[in-house]
Structures are given as C-alpha cells and as structure tokens.
C-alpha cells in the first residue's frame, strides 16, 4: 500500500483527529451561538427591571393578558394588549392573527423585542394549548391580586391547580 493507512494506530489517529476537529468546530459553534441572538431570556413583566433589558434584546415574555386591555390598531391587523403578572404590566403589540386560544385573563407567551418607546413588539404569540395545561411562566407572580374576567375562578385558584 503506497497511500493510505497501513497500521491500526495511524488509522485510529486519523479517525480521532477528524472526530476531535468536528467536535471542536461544534463546540465553537455552540459557544458562539449561545452568546448571540439565539438565546432569549424568558421573563415575566416584573422581572424586566432586574434583567437590564435593552431595546432590541430578544425576549420571551410570559404572563396573563390583562382584562380589558385588548384592542386592535387602525390597520386592523395589529393587536395591542397588556401582559401582566399582577405585579407589573407590559404593553405588547403584535401584527398578525392571534392564536385560537388567545383570551383576556388567560396565559400567553410572547416573543419579540422592546422598541425605544418601551412597547414590546412581539413577532410570536403562543396561547395555552388546552384547559389542562398552562405554559410555565404564565402563572402570575402575585396571583391573589388577579381576578378572573367572568369571576368564575380566580387566578389564584388557577395557579393552585
């Protein structure tokens, strides 16, 4: 054999090197990506102050849609509502069709960035999928202060479930 590997040792060496190079590449990739836009912090409205959030930072914002806060913008496709954890409120705007289960008084997770005026511009809105499940992070911090829109069950009772 003129070319190629003649011993088991050198074969192993090449395979190991290739593996390590790829793994190194992947590690670099992971570190690079984890430091950039790929990561988004998951917060509730009252956490925002402690996280030093700048306009343009990508966030996931969870909480309840404040009762009576929902209205539509003039163009008909922009939705404006307030997300609250019953401690602090954040005004959110979302251009698009809201998910089916979007309701005032219900849990919601929005994803987007703050603009310079302090409005949270969401590009994704997720509502809870069904009655048995609420996404973690949408349960209010101060559940006792929340009331259910129809007065059927208080948010505190919902949180206790």
């Amino acid at each position, binding site marked *: 054999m003129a070319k190629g*590997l003649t011993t*088991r040792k050198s074969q192993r060496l*090449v395979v190991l090197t*290739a593996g390590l190079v790829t793994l190194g590449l992947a590690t670099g990739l992971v570190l690079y990506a984890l430091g950039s836009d790929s990561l988004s912090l998951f917060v509730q409205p009252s956490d925002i102050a402690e*996280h030093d959030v700048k306009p343009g930072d990508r966030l*996931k914002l969870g909480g309840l849609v404040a009762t009576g806060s929902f209205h539509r913008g003039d163009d008909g496709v922009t939705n404006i509502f307030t997300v609250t954890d019953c401690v602090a409120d954040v005004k959110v705007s979302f251009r698009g069709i809201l998910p089916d289960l979007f309701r005032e008084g219900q849990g919601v997770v929005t994803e987007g960035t703050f603009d310079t005026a302090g409005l949270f511009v969401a590009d994704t809105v997720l509502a809870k999928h*069904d009655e048995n499940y609420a996404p973690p992070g949408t349960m209010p911090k101060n559940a006792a202060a929340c009331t259910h829109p129809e007065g059927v069950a208080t948010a505190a009772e919902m949180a206790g479930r």
Partner: protein
Amino acid sequence: MIAEAGHFALVIATILALMAGIVPPVGLKRRDMGLIALADSFAVAQFLMVAIAFAALMHGFIVSDFSLKVVAANSHTAKPMLYKVAGTWGNHEGSLLLWVLILTLFASLVSLFGRNLPLTFRARVLSVQALLSLGFLLFILVTSNPFERLSPAPLEGNGLNPLLQDPGLAFHPPMLYLGYVGLSVAFSFAVAALIEREVTPMWARWVRPWTLAAWIFLTGGIALGSWWAYYELGWGGWWFWDPVENASFMPWLAASALLHSAIVVEKRDALKSWTILLAIVAFSFSLLGTFLVRSGVITSVHAFAVDPTRGIFILGFLALVVGASLTLFAMRAPSLAPGGLFGLVSRESALVLNNILLATFAAVVLIGTLYPLFVEAAGGAQISVGAPFFNYAALVLMSPLIVALGLGPLLAWKRGRLSRAARILLPALIVAAVVFVGTVWATAGGYVMSAFGLALGLWLIVSAKLEILQRIRFFEGPMAGLKRLVRLPRAALGMALAHMGLGVLVLAITISETWTSETLTVLSPGETAMAGGYEFTLDKVEPVAGPNYAAVRGTLSVRRDGELVTVLTPEDRTFGDPVMETTEAAIRPLVTGDLYAVIGEAIGPVAADGRWSLRLYFKPAISGLWLGTLMMMAGGLLSLTDRRARVGAAAAREKAA
C-alpha cells in the same frame, strides 16, 4: 369487567417480563437448554397479555366507558369513531401502553423471525428486551394506570383536544413509537453482543434491517408530525426546533448514523465498538425523548400532564438503562477484536465522516435542547435556545455531509481513488456550480445562502443518479445498461433513492424558506389581496356546522392573470366540550408550490359587509418536503427487501447448525 381483565393482563405481563428477564439468563449460566428455550414463549406470552390490555383500553374508548378515568378525561360520545380509537393513545397512559405493546411486539418478532439466530444469543436479546418491558410495565402500573376507575362515573367525557382530532395526528404517535421502540431491538442486540463478547459481520447483518425499519418509521413519524404542524397550526411553518421535535430528531440522527456504520461492520468487520455504542446511544435518545415529553419538564402540545413522580420514575429508568449499558460497554468494548484496516480515501472513511458529522449534530441538538433546563436547574434565569442556533448548526454540519454524500458511494472499499470519483461526478459539479452562479447573479448577490442550498441539493440528486448510471455502465451501452439496472441489488437502488430524497428535501427547504410570500390583510367580501403573484378574492364568509363543531368559513377564489386557479375555504372552528377554537387552514398544492389561506377573527361588527383578518401565503416547493421524505422512506424499504437480508439469514442458520 373488561377493564379489570385488561388490568389483570397487564399485571401478568409484568410478572412474565420479570421472569423472562431472569429465567433464560439463569439457564444460560447453568447451560440448561430447557430454561433458555423458554425465552421465546415468554416473549410471545408478554405480547399477548399486553395486546389484551391494549384491546381492553381501546374497548373502553370505543364504547365511551366513562367509569374509566382516562376515557372520561380524554374522550366524548360525540367524537367521530376514528378519534375514539385514536384516543386510546392520545393521552399519557394509553400512549405508554402503546409503547409497551410495540416493545413486546418487536420482542416476539425477534423470537419468530430470529429462529435462525443461535439460541443462546436470541435468548440474551429477548431477556434484555424483557427487562426494558419490565421497566415500562412497572411505570404504567405504579404511576400511570390506564384502568383506574372513577366512581361515580360521569355521564359525559371531557373530549379530546380538537387540535389532535386530525387524521395525520391519529397515526403520528404509533408511527413514531414504532421507530423509537424499533431502536430497542438494536439496543438489545448490542447489549447481547457485549455480554457474548463478540461482534461479527453476521451480527451487523441482523441489526441493520431492524435499524432500517425503525429508521423508516421514525422518518415517517417525524414527517407526519411536521405535516400536521404545517396544515393544522395555521402558521405555515413545519419545523420549529421545539424541544419535543428535537426529541424525535436526535434518535433519527443516531439511527441514520447506525444504519451506515452497521454497513461497515457487515462488509469490512470494522468500526465494531463504535457501532455498538451508536446502538446504545440511539435507543438512549429514544428514552430521553420519552422522558422529555412525558415528564412535563418541557411543556408543549405533546406533554399530556405534569406529574413529578412520573418524571422521576422515567429519569431513574433512563439513568439505569443508559448507565448500565454504558458501563457494560466500557468493560467489554476493549476486548472486542479490532477489525479490518482501511485507507484515508475509502468507502469506510466516507462512512466514518458521515458518522462523525451525524453524531456531532445529534450532540449539538442535545445541548441546545437541554441547555435551558440546566441553566434553570442551576438557579439561573429561564432562557430558551431559538431556531437560529439549530439552523446554523445544521448548515455548518450538514453541508459537508451532503458534499461527501455525493462522493462516498463512488469510493471503493479499503482504498478508493478520489480522482475517479471526481471524474464521474464532474457533471454534478458543473450543474451545482452553474446553479449557484446563476442564482447569485439573478438575485444580484442577495441570496448567496439560498444559491448554496440549491447547489447542494442538485449536487446530491445528480451525483446519486450518476452513481447508478456508473454502476450499470450506462454510458458504454444504454440498452445493456438498462438491463443491468433491473438486476441491480435493491440495496444499491434504495441507497440512491434515499440519497436523492435527501437532495429533494434540501432543495424544498431552501426554496420554500427563501421564496415564501406572505400577506397579512383585512378584507371585506368582494375585496382582493395579492400573495406570490396570485390574486386572492374573498367571495363570502358564512357559518357552517360540522359533526362536533361550528365554524366560520371563508370562500376565497384565487386567480392568476385573471384566470381562476382554485377556490380556498379556510375555517375557524369552535368545538364544544371543551370549548376550544382551532384554525383550519385551506391549502391547495400546485406544481410550483402551495396556496395557503387562514381566516382570523372578524374585525368590527359581524355583518354582511364585515371585515375579516386573513393570512395568505404562496409557499413554493413545499410538496418537495413530503416527496423527499417519501423517497427516503421508499429507499429504506427497497433496501430492506434486498436479497442480502435473506441470504444472510440462511448463512446464519448454517452457522448455528
């Protein structure tokens, strides 16, 4: 009574699994053939018992026996029959029962079709398989008993989440489970080989069809889930790098790697310990996926309930299985005889590269999926890893894979010549280069990455074709070549077809991600909006009634250059019991792409001239996703029917005799 019979059958199955895990190994120790031979009977009996339990539960769903807690919580009398049946596995308890059903089914298939495996080896495989069943059966009986009664029984059930009432989704879990659990066979074979301290080409010949079958089901299951997300969720997306999607994607990556490394073991008797490790890792990913989905650590549409004891149980089981098998691997792998040598440029090397890249990608997806959990567990903030991370990883790791994928099949075993492969693939390179330059030029340099994606996809498709043409020596005489095509081993055709499918998939992803056009608008009946060169006119909006829902249906006529192309009728459905709304997107696949329309809420008062929010898309080449996946599955199926598997079986019989 039927439910109690099911419960009883489940208890018997558990006892059988325990005995099947103990008796044959004891027999092996004492060289008692009678005890060893019991392994087969245990396997079949376990399957029968679990099948009885599963049938009992399904009966409960079909007759709407609401005295069963699971049925009351997940079914409803008004539900169509298909979804009553599918409801059996549309919940946590039932889906676990389905898991065990498939696990025991595979064990009995190994026992039936593995008659030509050496008896001792088969007995070891079956007892490992039985121990896996035991873990899951205990899990069901202790934490998730599907036969729990309610007293008094409610008159009506809670209904099934309407998002899940869909034909695509009814078959998504069984398909995915067949894949997940199919990998358990490769795992049991690997553990048995470690115990026997021997990995032979014959072993690989046995493992490969099982892995291939599991891989085909996994591919199909993932594609079904993706297809469902595409048409049911109404966002027009089909892959979100959701943790639960990743949970099914990681075993798929590992299975793809295993599929290829098993070839090296079979043909060249090399890469043995790596292949064993992959078999263990692939099934561990399946278990990890189950843990992620069933524990409620990650909440999504797939997570049925949040119950910490269940999570702890699965985590414990996962740790036990992975820990024990990896320990065994660490102890035994060094004693496996090393196999054949191969050159730096060879088929083996190409397959090693394939494995390194696939395994690394799986590791990166694992890190991206678990990182938020670790950060949160360490007391840090809640974070999430978004799609850009995974997309970037896919691009960096999968591009070299696809480039190498064109070359690999043309390299000879042991020592190949790159120059020969390059000469054969020259046309593919030219096609890829022309398309790349052409796309960059046509878009004035705006879409370099898309041009790269197109070039990659075409490179792969053309290379796979050239490889087949080369194999049948088509260019030396087309007629004689075509005759040879018929006699070509099915495995070779299957490989080319699956590789071409991947190429089609890459093309479809690139085109649809780059050139989708989306219009978000508000229309009154009679008004028109444009998307992707098509005119969408809202003709009317009317209420309609379905079997268990009421809907608002919009009728849109779509025209191109004034000519009617199709009529789309998106719906916004409201289900009763529980009250829930779902969006029913209207999709019309054309040759060039899909027309996709979603109707939202009414803006302002709902009157004859009411205004409705609408989302309209033209999504080019989406059908390529499903076509590419089908080609991959068909390729796998072709390879599975190859003569080699049967010939190998005969050879094994001779060896055992």
